[in-house]
């Protein structure tokens, strides 16, 4: 299902946290949303999910807005993984994951729940209660919950933020596989190497606007990264895959290193 944002603006008070932004995510594509803190990535993602009212523009799923799709069907159309999500009651892990089945009926532990737990590598945690999980385990359980929706579109806000390197790679491989099998996937990322290696396309945001969009090699250039983040980068390839390491802080406008006195 094609997800399209057309000249979307999101207002917070009088300020526009997302300004006139257009982007398109195709089925089978892993789209990475990157940018510095406060760039508006989360606001944009929430606006895509219909959680944030649009000050201007429109968001469509397969050509229809969420209002046209309807609330109930909307719950099956997209799966949203919130940033640093919480589990408010100490439910058993498989029951938490089964909440992803609510748009399809009841929150029962069914085959889709099992597939999601298997994919997110939380099957061994299924009998534990949510309160007993570590931060990284909880993040993977919540990812499994989002996968259990089995929606054609997955929007994940920093899905690897709380994870150790092993599970970061595992999660990125998982969302890439998901994209390869036909799901439209949008992920917010901070790790530029993960963004460069795993995403098919990147959208780089700064101050609510789109600074650049395209294949990682075109977006993660030293100039654009310096303008967006105010850091210089060391780039290279290993086993034919790119890596991008933030190296020094720099003057954002001129990409020259900041020299300490």
């Amino acid at each position, binding site marked *: 299902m094609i997800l399209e944002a057309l000249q979307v603006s999101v207002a917070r008070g009088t300020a526009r946290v997302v300004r006139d932004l257009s982007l398109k995510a195709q089925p089978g594509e892993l789209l990475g949303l990157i940018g510095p803190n406060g760039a508006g990535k989360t606001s944009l993602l929430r606006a895509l999910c219909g959680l944030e009212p649009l000050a201007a523009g429109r968001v469509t799923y397969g050509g229809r807005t969420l209002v046209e799709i309807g609330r109930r069907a909307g719950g099956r159309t997209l799966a949203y993984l919130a940033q640093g999500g919480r589990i408010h009651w100490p439910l058993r892990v498989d029951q938490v994951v089964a909440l992803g089945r*609510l748009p399809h009926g009841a929150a029962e532990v069914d085959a889709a729940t099992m597939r999601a737990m298997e994919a997110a590598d939380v099957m061994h945690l299924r009998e534990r209660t949510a309160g007993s999980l570590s931060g990284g385990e909880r993040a993977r359980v919540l990812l499994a919950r989002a996968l259990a929706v089995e929606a054609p579109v997955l929007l994940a806000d920093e899905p690897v933020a709380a994870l150790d390197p092993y599970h970061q790679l595992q999660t990125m491989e998982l969302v890439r596989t998901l994209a390869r099998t036909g799901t439209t996937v949008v992920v917010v990322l901070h790790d530029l190497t993960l963004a460069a290696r795993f995403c098919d396309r990147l959208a780089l945001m700064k101050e609510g606007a789109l600074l650049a969009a395209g294949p990682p090699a075109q977006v993660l250039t030293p100039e654009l990264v310096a303008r967006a983040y105010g850091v210089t980068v060391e780039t290279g390839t290993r086993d034919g895959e790119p890596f991008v390491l933030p190296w020094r802080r720099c003057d954002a406008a001129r990409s020259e290193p900041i020299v300490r006195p």
Partner: protein
Amino acid sequence: MMDRAGPGHALLVTALAFLVLALFAGSSAIGYATLDISAALADLIAGRPSLPALVLSELRLPRAILGAAVGFSLGITGAALQGLMRNPLADPGVVGVSGAAALGAVVAFYFGLSATFSLALPLGGLVGAGIATAFLLMLARQGVGTATLILAGVALNSLAGALTALALNLAPSPYAALEVVFWLMGSLSDRSLVHVALALPFMIIGWGLVLSTGRAMDALTLGEDTAASLGFSLSRTRLLVVGGAAAAVGASVAVAGAIGFVGLVVPHLMRPLAGNRPGRLLLLSGLAGAALTLGADIAVRLIPTRPELKLGVVTAIIGAPFFLAMLRRLKVEGE
């Protein structure tokens, strides 16, 4: 791949329902006068106006029905409000409706309306609850957040408490003040079928509204954003829970006064049995609330004190230390 809690849940609901029925029968059988229940029931059904039939229909049955209905209302709304706010300390009193209902009843007392006709008291309570409910629903319809809604409820409660205190302060006679204080303590004694007819419809509507939010309650376990992304309308859920709680609790306070701690403690007791699922907790808490209230109301009649202990006093005396013990346990589990 079956959800293993499924059959267990049905069994639990059935067991609790039987417990409520047994306590209901117990509550009908126990009183200051000895009563041959079967004879009274036979007379009542046959329409013979005997003394036992009269005791059963005018005293025992209304008390038992109200005990079950008030307890169910407190239990289910406690569970719903805790689920909505994702806060285990929420309580039917929090939304401010019980305070407003109490104030309505006190105003009826104060202006001597209750002396002229006895139903002025519950009617005053319903009016008070109605005004508070309208205010809260207006806020909920404007789409304010859950925290704002709760703070508005807390403010309503404070205002109602202050005005109740003012009425006591200005009470024309110490007897009037005493009567108000006694009524505020909460009791089910000397209620008639008219009280039942007055309160039960509101309570049933309230239960229906609250029970319809079960799935949304489950979704809210993951927070408001995720619940919304799963296709649940937050404003609609707030409207249903606050409206349902107001109707059920307002009607309860209007006929029985303030009965504390049932709405707070019962959801805690039932939560482990519901597998911590907020949706499942609703019906279980309603039934357990009914059982607890019926049980406590039987206890106040068995404890030989004169005057009779007030139901609200007993639930608070049992409930408060119990709640402290539970907090200790929760703290240990949380660590």
